[in-house]
């Protein structure tokens, strides 16, 4: 097995202060060097991505006086995929007086991540969570409110307090518009130079420091090199390696992967979140999957028929006593609100038993009949109206009349580029925020925590820690003729040329779909040594075929959506292989990573803390046959002691 990787030196996070966890962030802020406001103008920061993390970072850095250059592949920064987040954002405000606190949010997040996250980072996240809500309210984010005019809350999977703030089923959109509007204000003031429809295709490193990026103007095809004093990646997750996921079609790993190839370690790539409540596939034309907010599990009850022979019957004809509300049965204390990884695997298990519903037997019911009886149709509509509409639009079925059908789908990736407490990668001057980094969610993310992390990183953490790095600048100006800059640019141009010249007989999408099948089958909800080994072989063969048979129409000097896709899929092959190697090396089950060989007698995930209580940070394998090198960052649990996660 070790044939697939080399073992390397251990790594440590030296940026986090030691001692009392409650004051670590305060002490780090105080020890961070400051940049004189007059000097900030002379410093340029590149921010790639304009979602919650990138948008909030760009706006905040520009407000502070830095010169910001922002890039996104969409036609407007407002369309970044954070916009699709539905359910909400957590904050330890304790407005419900239900026993919540910063410590409890910290505790829940470390436990929810199955003890594979770094305590320092998580504690800081819980600390800044309260400031995020204040900031968003000040920007005019229209959160749901109660009749007294105060903010409303709801509960979410994996917790027993109500700490989730929301704006109907469109929380991500409203938070993103807040950050986007703050950004647009800075664009108008000339502090941010916005480059929409631009894609980062390479990182430029000069004398060991991240100093710029190579971008392609997606409208004209022009390749340019963009220089700065520091580079921030806020380019999101890599769920689209599965082809079918709840990510937007354009979401990709290229920015992160290019940085990884240039030396940034990639941490825990196998930690993938499979979200339990998505609309099942309807056919081979399927281009993406749609999530139904987890908040639906507050009032909806999940069930399948007790007997496989009932599965073909309409739901209404299955008597109450013939229904198996399996989450309530197996997990009586959390019931339908168990964390995502547990709900997803439970759905897979009942479908594997032949008790799934809908086409292909890949679905379970999410039933609102009881909620409608208890609260009335109007109250259910007020809470979930837009989600019900969305479901009906996609499936043609009315969830007020028949139960929804749901099935798990890839939704979020906890892994990402390795960063220290300052959110700096292993390349000096390269910072990574939001879903693109690995730092806060361990092996499983709790609901409503992604929005919290994205905004926490961008509004509050990065502006301090990046300032500390920039305080040593401005760095020497780099000319576009510098050999590293010229080389990075040539790499991009050659790659595009190579993709266009193959002129084979298979489309990019056909390769992407096939890669997705391999990943879902062998590196999805359940993984085995045998399956992963097989997947690595399949991916390598498919990658080779891709570079011989892919057909990319058109030229590089125009809007060419297939060329964009081809470059992204080429990177997904390499990432997919690393994900399988990471999953193979981690011979334990934890959070979203379930190894069939490591489970308790009743089928729950079995961790091996003695062996695997570390972050797996991978170094890119250079050369064709070389193997990636594994660097371990040992995790210390001083406050929340690892226990068996039980939601029973």
């Amino acid at each position, binding site marked *: 097995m070790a044939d697939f990787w080399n073992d390397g030196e251990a790594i440590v996070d030296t940026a986090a202060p030691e001692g009392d966890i409650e004051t670590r962030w305060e002490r780090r802020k105080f020890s961070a060097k400051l940049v004189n406001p007059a000097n900030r103008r002379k410093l340029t920061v590149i921010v790639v991505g304009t979602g919650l993390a990138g948008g909030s970072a760009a706006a905040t850095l520009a407000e502070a006086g830095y010169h910001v250059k922002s890039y996104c592949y969409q036609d407007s920064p407002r369309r970044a995929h954070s916009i699709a987040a539905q359910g909400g954002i957590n904050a330890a405000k304790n407005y419900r007086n239900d026993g919540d606190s910063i410590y409890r949010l910290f505790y829940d997040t470390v436990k929810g991540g199955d003890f594979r996250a770094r305590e320092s980072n998580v504690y800081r996240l819980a600390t800044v969570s309260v400031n995020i809500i204040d900031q*968003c309210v000040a920007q*005019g984010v229209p959160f749901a409110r109660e009749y007294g*005019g105060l903010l409303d809350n709801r509960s979410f999977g994996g917790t027993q307090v109500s700490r989730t703030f929301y704006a109907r089923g469109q929380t991500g959109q409203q938070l993103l518009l807040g950050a986007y509007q703050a950004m647009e*204000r800075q664009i108008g003031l000339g502090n941010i130079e916005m480059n929409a429809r631009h894609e980062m295709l390479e990182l430029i490193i000069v004398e060991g420091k991240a100093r710029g990026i190579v971008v392609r103007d997606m409208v004209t095809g022009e390749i340019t090199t963009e220089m700065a004093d520091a580079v921030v990646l806020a380019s999101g997750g890599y769920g689209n390696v599965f082809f079918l996921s709840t990510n937007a079609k354009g979401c990709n790993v290229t920015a992160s992967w290019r940085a990884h190839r240039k030396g940034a370690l990639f941490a825990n790539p196998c930690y993938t979140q499979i979200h339990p409540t998505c609309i099942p596939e309807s*056919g081979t034309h399927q281009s993406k999957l749609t999530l139904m907010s987890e908040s639906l599990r507050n009032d909806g009850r999940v069930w399948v028929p007790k007997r496989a022979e009932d599965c073909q019957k309409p739901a209404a004809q299955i008597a109450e006593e013939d229904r198996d509300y399996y989450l309530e049965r197996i997990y009586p204390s959390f019931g339908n609100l168990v964390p995502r990884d547990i709900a997803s695997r439970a759905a897979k298990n009942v479908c594997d038993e032949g008790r799934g519903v809908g086409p292909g037997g890949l679905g379970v019911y999410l039933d609102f009949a009881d909620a409608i009886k208890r609260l009335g149709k109007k109250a259910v509509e007020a809470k979930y109206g837009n989600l019900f509409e969305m479901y009906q639009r996609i499936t043609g079925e009315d969830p007020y009349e028949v139960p929804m059908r749901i099935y798990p789908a890839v939704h979020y990736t906890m892994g990402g580029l390795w960063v220290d407490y300052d959110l700096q990668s292993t390349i000096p001057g390269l910072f990574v925020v939001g879903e693109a980094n690995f730092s806060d969610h361990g092996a499983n993310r709790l609901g409503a925590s992604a929005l919290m992390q994205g905004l926490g990183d961008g509004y509050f953490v990065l502006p301090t820690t990046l300032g500390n790095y920039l305080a040593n600048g401005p760095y020497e100006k780099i000319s576009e003729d510098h050999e590293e800059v010229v080389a990075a640019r040539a790499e991009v141009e050659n790659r595009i040329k190579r993709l266009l010249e193959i002129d084979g007989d298979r489309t990019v999408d056909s390769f992407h779909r096939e890669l997705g099948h391999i990943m879902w089958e062998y590196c999805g909800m359940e993984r085995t040594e045998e399956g992963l080994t097989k997947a690595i072989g399949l991916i390598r063969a498919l990658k080779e075929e891709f570079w011989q048979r892919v057909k990319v129409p058109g030229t590089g000097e125009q809007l060419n959506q297939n060329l964009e896709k081809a470059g992204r899929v080429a990177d997904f092959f390499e990432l997919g292989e690393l994900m399988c190697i990471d999953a193979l090396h981690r011979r334990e089950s934890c959070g979203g990573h379930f190894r069939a060989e490591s489970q308790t007698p009743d089928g729950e995930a079995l961790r091996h803390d003695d062996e695997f209580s570390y972050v797996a940070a991978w170094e890119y394998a250079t050369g064709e046959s070389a193997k990636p090198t594994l660097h371990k960052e040992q995790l210390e649990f001083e406050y929340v002691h690892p226990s068996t996660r039980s939601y029973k």
Partner: protein
Amino acid sequence: MDIQVRVWRQSGPTDKGRMVTYDVKDISPDASFLEMLDVLNEKLILDGDDPIAFDHDCREGICGACSMVIDGTAHGPEKATTTCQLHMRHFKQGDTIDVEPWRAAAFPVIKDLVVDRTAFDTIIQAGGYITAPTGAAPEAHATPVPKKDADLAFEAATCIGCGACVAACPNGSAMLFTAAKVAHLGLMPQGQPERDTRVIDMLQAQDDAGFGGCTNMGECSQVCPKGIPLTLIGRLNSDYRKAIRKQV
């Protein structure tokens, strides 16, 4: 099902463009409209033709990227639905469907069905925000917001910036887009200090960006995938008059 699509093909901003007819066979009624175009594009690529360029991203009706005029209606025949959420079950076997880009002076065509909507961002830059630099925010519960106002602000804030309102307007006006943002921020207590300058500056930016004037035709609200009500334009006009009077 088998259908025909007549699609606007335009190789670049300076090309004149024309409608081209394609046969699409064996499409599932459960496929989305964009998935139907995906299937067609796969075929075009293998046939050596140029695939149809179109904007899309989230494919769940929230990012606002997709933008097609289908059979003469922005986002197609279904009410309150974006193109990506339109499914083929709403069409019939043998239908011929026309597909065109947004057409408006302020949204020039880039290629095929892809248009440039940067002008919307320009309007927001002029005042579509509340000035609240990071770190300066008071405690969230310091200012209660009446639920009625918060709910109405939310309704206005659901605008996804797709531009269907502009595409549907005979004048190519962006009034519904601007009105939605003016209403969202103007309904919140936090938005009051900039309320007057916001409406004046945003309207000016809208005119400068080449959008037409509003003559209350109401087409915008009809095609809006989020159902932004026309009454918000009345609200904007009222805000504008008040702001101008104060200026004088």
